[in-house]
C-alpha cells in the first residue's frame, strides 16, 4: 500500500462524527421552509458538510442521505456530478485557476506554472507534500476580463500574473 493510500485509509478508519447535530441541524431544518421538497436541500446540505469537514466522505454521504430521506447511492451520483465537491481530502488551501481560452489568451498558463512552482505541487491536480496547497486547473470562472482569476478557498482574486504569485501565497500559511 502506498503512502497516499494508507493516508486515505487512516482518514476512513476514524470514527465518523455526524455533521447534522445541534446548530447545524437546526440551520438545515430552518431552510426546509423555503423549498417544497427535502431533496432540494441536497446541494445546500453538501455545502454545509464541505464547509465543516473540508471534503465529502462516504460516511458523510450516508449521513446526508439519511437526513434528507435519500439513498447513499443517489447522493453519491449527485456529488460526483458537481466539480466543486471534493470526494477526497485536499490541501489546507484549495487553489483553482482558470485556463479557458479567454484567460489562456492573456497568459493563464504562465500563472499556472508559477502557482505549481511556488506551492510545490509540481503538477496540476495534486497536493503539495506539506499538505498546504492543492492546485487545480478549472474552466471559466466568470471573470474573463480580469485574467487570470484565481480562487484560494473562498477568496476570489483577480488579475493574477506570475510575479504576484509569491505574495499571494504568503497570505495563506
Amino acid at each position, binding site marked *: 500500500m502506498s503512502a497516499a493510500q494508507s493516508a486515505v485509509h487512516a482518514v476512513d478508519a476514524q470514527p465518523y462524527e455526524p455533521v447534522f447535530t445541534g446548530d447545524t441541524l437546526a440551520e438545515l431544518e430552518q431552510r426546509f421552509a*423555503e*423549498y*417544497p*421538497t427535502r*431533496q*432540494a*436541500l*441536497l*446541494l*445546500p446540505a*453538501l*455545502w454545509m458538510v464541505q464547509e465543516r469537514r473540508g471534503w465529502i466522505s462516504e460516511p458523510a454521504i450516508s449521513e446526508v442521505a439519511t437526513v*434528507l430521506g*435519500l439513498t447513499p447511492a443517489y447522493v453519491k*451520483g*449527485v456529488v460526483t*456530478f*458537481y*466539480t*466543486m*465537491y471534493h470526494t477526497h481530502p485536499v490541501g489546507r488551501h484549495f487553489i*483553482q485557476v482558470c485556463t*479557458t*481560452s*479567454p484567460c*489562456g*489568451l*492573456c497568459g493563464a498558463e504562465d500563472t499556472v506554472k508559477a502557482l505549481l512552482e511556488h506551492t510545490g505541487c509540481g503538477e496540476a491536480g495534486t497536493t503539495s507534500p506539506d499538505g498546504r496547497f492543492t492546485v487545480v486547473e*478549472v*474552466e*471559466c*470562472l*466568470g*471573470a*474573463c*476580463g*480580469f*485574467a487570470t482569476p484565481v*480562487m484560494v478557498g*473562498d*477568496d*476570489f482574486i483577480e488579475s493574477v500574473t506570475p510575479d504576484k504569485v509569491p505574495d499571494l501565497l504568503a497570505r495563506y500559511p
Partner: protein
Amino acid sequence: MGFPHPSHAGETVVLSKYFGDAGARTHAGWVERGGYEGLRKALGMAPEAIIEDMKASGLRGRGGAGFPTGLKWSFMPKGDGKPHYLVCNADESEPGTFKDREIMRWTPHALIEGCAIGAYAIGAERCYIYIRGEFTEPWTIMSEAVREAYAAGTLGDNAMGSGKTIHITLHRGAGAYICGEETALMNSIEGRRGNPRIKPPFPAAAGLFGMPTTINNVETLAAVPHILVRGAEWYKSLSRGNPKSTGTKLISVCGHVQRPGNYEVTLGTPMKDLLYDMCGGMRPGRTLKAVIPGGSSVPIMTAEEAESALLDYEGLIEKGSMLGSAGMIVMDDSADMVYQIMRLARFYAHESCAQCTQCREGTAWTTRILERILSGKGKESDFDLLLDLADNMTGTTICVLSDSCAAPVVSGIRKFRGEFEAYIRRERAPVLALA
C-alpha cells in the same frame, strides 16, 4: 460604465451606473438612489399591465437566446391554482461573459427589485436565484442584500406593505457549466444531477418542482425596474440599429484589447466603436484577427466582419454570428486559432453532461482530432471528419451545448482554414506533444 474603467462617452449607462459605488449596495443606499420605486409602482399595477409594459419595451432575454421577456412571462398560466416560480439564472459560466457578476457585486438590490417585480407579474410567491458556486463574493453581497430587504419589509408576506407575498431564496451551484441551461438548473435546485430535460414540457407548463416556472437571466431582470420607472417608450427608444433590438446591453470584453471590462451600450452600437474607442483597441503593434462576440458558443467572426457589425441581435446574425450573452472574446494576430478552437472544444467536452451520444462522443472526438492536428499528426481528411462530426452534433441533442461546440469549429475552419493547413502540412511546428 466600462467597469473597472471610467465611463466612456459612447456608453449608455443604465444598469452599470453604480458599478464601483459601494454605497449603492445597501438597502438604504439603493433607496437613496431611486431604488425600489419600480417595485412600488409594480405592486400597484395589475400583473397583466406589467407584462404589457415588458412587451411594449421590446426587452429580450440577456442570457443568450434573446427571447422576448414580456412574451415569455405571458406564457405563464392564469388562475391554475398551482404554485408558480420565478428562477433567476445567475450561473454565468459562458466563457467570455462576466457581467452578471458585476450586477450582483455592485447593485444587488437592482436584481432583488427586478426579481420581485417579475415574481409578482407571473403570479409567483417565491423566486430562486441560482448563483454559481465559484461566485463567493457576489453570494455574500447578495445574501446580505436579501437579509436587508426582508428586514426593511421590502420582501416577505407583506412586500412593501402591499399585502402581496414575495420571497427570494438564494441557491448555490457547485461547479457545472451545464447548470446554466434552464432545465438543468431546475434539476440542480431540485437536488438532482444537472442534466437538461427533454422539452416539451416547457418550463411555463411544468418547470421547477413540476410547477409553472419562468426563468430569466440576471441582466434581464435587473433591467425590469428601469422600464417600469422610466417607461416602455423610453426603453424602446434606446435602439441604434434594428427596432427589434431595444435597450442597453452590458458587453463583457476580454482577450487582446487594451481595456477589457464591461461596457454598457445602446443596442445597435457599431462594434468598431466599442473595440477601438471604448476598449482602446489592440495592444501596440498588434492588429485584430478575430472576435467571438456572444460568449464562446457562437460562430467566430473575422476582423472585417467584426469591424462592420452592429452590436444587436439582428446585426450579428447578419454577419453570421450571434449576440448570445455578449461576452466578447477578442483575438489579435498573435492568436493561434487552431489552438484556441481546440481549447474551446476541450471546454465543451469537459462540460458535456454526457446524456446524448452525439454530444458526449462528438465533443471528445472533436477535441482529440484538434489536439492531433496541433501535435503535427493531422491529415487533410481531418477537415471532413471535423465538419462531419459538427454536422452530427448540430440540432440533434437535448440541449444546444453540442451545437455550441460545433459553432467555433465550423466557423473556424471556414474562416481560418490556412492555419489548420499549416499544421497539417507540417509548415508550422507542433505545439502539443501527444502521448
